[in-house]
């Protein structure tokens, strides 16, 4: 992958970050395309914020290179990089009004005063804060401060906008509304967004593409659909959504598909990201909503077990099933499609797997 071309908005090539003896990033390579809503997703401490701060210029790069539209930028100070950041806790200048905050970047770029005023007004309108121009940040609600931070970062028309968990300080309702607004804003302005979050729902709803990170490494890069349906490894499968992971032995390999034998002897057909090795151990991942329960017929080779717990969740019902093979799985049924049979704890049930829903994970 050539990340240093002009078509790539942000190119990350073999970037390593060490703090003393601690390695925060072990060698990341990424290609963030122009006009893309790109998300760095991972649990806290996975290195996603460090990577973002290196793109912004707040952290030095220990090894590797960072490109911005083909230009190598890792040695430039933050004020020389045409990228802007929306900070987690907004970092609005407390002694300046909303309008002064928004105008700050343009003022530093020494743009003509009339232009700054016009653009400030436009940004105020864009984030629906026209009536708040003369307020100080502490007179605004959290959601309004968030919008000011967004307007301030977008006002100088950056080539790339970096967002460091910008929604984490908001309450749930506001967070959901802001997701839609952020996505709309990105589409309207066409600015490349690099968004950092630990919230997978945020990542799935807004992103064009997502890089899932863990322990200083990029685990998988792809669209929301790809990382959910075709997780590259155990971590991604487990971190994104809910899944059932079952230990298996690989048999009868045919290209990327194979037969996976559970410990109890039942075999399921699965597909893998790369051609697996017959005889090796692995795991299969099956999403709970891709499983369904039917009345047990106790046929040979069929996946069957005993329901030991049911949880009613409103939109759907979750059944916890102990398989005859020994593994425990979660089955999720939508309540809208009324199941013919109600399963209660202690009931025997057979499990049906949707076609193509079994994913083999070797690592």
């Amino acid at each position, binding site marked *: 992958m050539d990340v240093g071309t002009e078509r790539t908005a942000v190119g990350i090539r073999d970037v390593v970050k060490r703090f003393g003896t601690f390695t925060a990033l072990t060698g990341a390579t990424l290609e963030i395309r122009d006009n893309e809503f790109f998300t760095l997703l991972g649990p806290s401490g996975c290195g996603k914020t460090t990577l973002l701060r290196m793109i*912004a*210029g*707040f952290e030095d790069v220990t090894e590797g290179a960072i490109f911005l539209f083909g230009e190598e930028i890792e040695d430039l*100070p*933050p*004020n*020389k990089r045409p*990228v*802007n*950041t929306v*900070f987690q*806790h907004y*970092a*609005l*200048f*407390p*002694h300046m009004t909303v309008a002064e905050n928004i105008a*700050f*970047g343009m003022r*530093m*770029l020494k743009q003509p005063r009339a232009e700054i005023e016009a653009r400030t007004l436009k940004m105020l309108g864009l984030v629906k804060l026209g009536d708040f121009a003369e307020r*100080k940040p*502490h007179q605004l609600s959290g959601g309004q401060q968030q919008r000011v931070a967004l307007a*301030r*970062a977008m006002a*100088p028309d950056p080539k790339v906008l970096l967002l460091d968990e910008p929604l984490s300080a908001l309450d749930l309702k506001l967070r959901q509304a802001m997701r839609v607004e952020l996505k709309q804003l990105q589409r309207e302005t066409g600015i490349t967004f690099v968004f950092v979050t630990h919230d997978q729902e945020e990542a799935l709803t807004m992103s064009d593409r997502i890089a899932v990170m863990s322990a200083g490494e990029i685990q998988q890069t792809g669209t929301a659909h790809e990382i959910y349906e075709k997780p590259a490894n155990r971590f991604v499968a487990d971190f994104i959504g809910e899944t059932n992971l079952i230990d298996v032995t690989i048999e009868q390999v045919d290209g990327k598909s194979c037969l996976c034998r559970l410990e109890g002897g039942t075999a399921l057909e699965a597909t893998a990201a790369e051609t697996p090795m017959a005889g090796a151990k692995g795991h299969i991942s099956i999403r709970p909503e891709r499983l369904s329960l039917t009345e047990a017929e106790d046929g040979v080779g069929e996946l069957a077990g005993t329901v030991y717990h049911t949880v009613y969740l409103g939109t759907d019902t979750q059944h916890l099933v102990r398989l005859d093979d020994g593994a425990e799985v979660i089955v999720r049924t939508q309540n809208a499609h009324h199941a013919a049979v109600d399963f209660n704890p202690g009931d025997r049930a057979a499990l049906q797997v949707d076609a193509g829903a079994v994913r083999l994970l070797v690592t």
Partner: protein
Amino acid sequence: MAGGFGGGATVSRTFAPVRNWLLLPSWAVIGIFLVVPVGIMLVYSFLTKEFRGGVIWEFSLAAYDQFIFDRGLFGDEAPTIEWTYITIFLRSIIQALVATVFCLVIGFPTAYFIATREPASRSIWLFLITVPYWVNLLIRTVSMKFLIRDNGPLNEFLLWTGVISEPLALVNTNLAVQLGLFYSYLPFMVLPIYASVERYNFALSEAAADLYADRWTTLRQILLPAVRPGIIAGCILVFVPSLGAFLAPDLLGGAKNFMIGSLIEEQFKGNAGNWPFGAAASMILLTMVLIVLMFYARQQSRADQGGR
């Protein structure tokens, strides 16, 4: 605030008698150590002087008159402005201002340096700053005199390096007084600035850099406004005691560099003094200080409205 008010009012009504009794020690301290002494000074400044020190209980404006007007040796000439004391006063203000600026220029980077160290080492730096203050101010001022005298270590060192060929005559100059004041009050500048820099949200500096501000602009437009309360507090804590200082001017400045503190001290020392005049000079000094403090209070309340 508004939400908690109802609860607070209920509590204070219940405990009102008890609370008044508990406040008594505070009132007593303020009364005995503030109101009564200042009251005595105020009264004395309007009395007639006794020649061997002390006062005659007879109302007189002579002390204030003497500060401002010259009526000749026998008091029978037409009044002209008496510049001696006004000059001393102005010199004191200038000396105190220069000392404050001096302390700020050195104190701010020092405080910034300490506040940006690792949390563990900060307390060590602060400790080092305060160590000299375990020694009495008089002794520290005398040792400053020893350091800068003609054959003291400073001159010896400069002669040895060849920067100068004759020892610098530092003692009994304004510069010596400055050094004394600076050395006496530097921590009063460092500590409040340290406290405000330590509370400063450094993400603001990052945000400024992210928005294309260079380091100098970030310092001036983002950091300084944010730590301004600490700077103002430090300036007042240095300016006010510098204005009334008498040890440094006495020991390091000599007669030429008399300051208001020394003038007041003279009036109460031995038999030669003039108590009403000393009291009047004190009241004038106090008024000056109050004006500075009121200026600070106004700045502070404006900052509270504007900032967080």
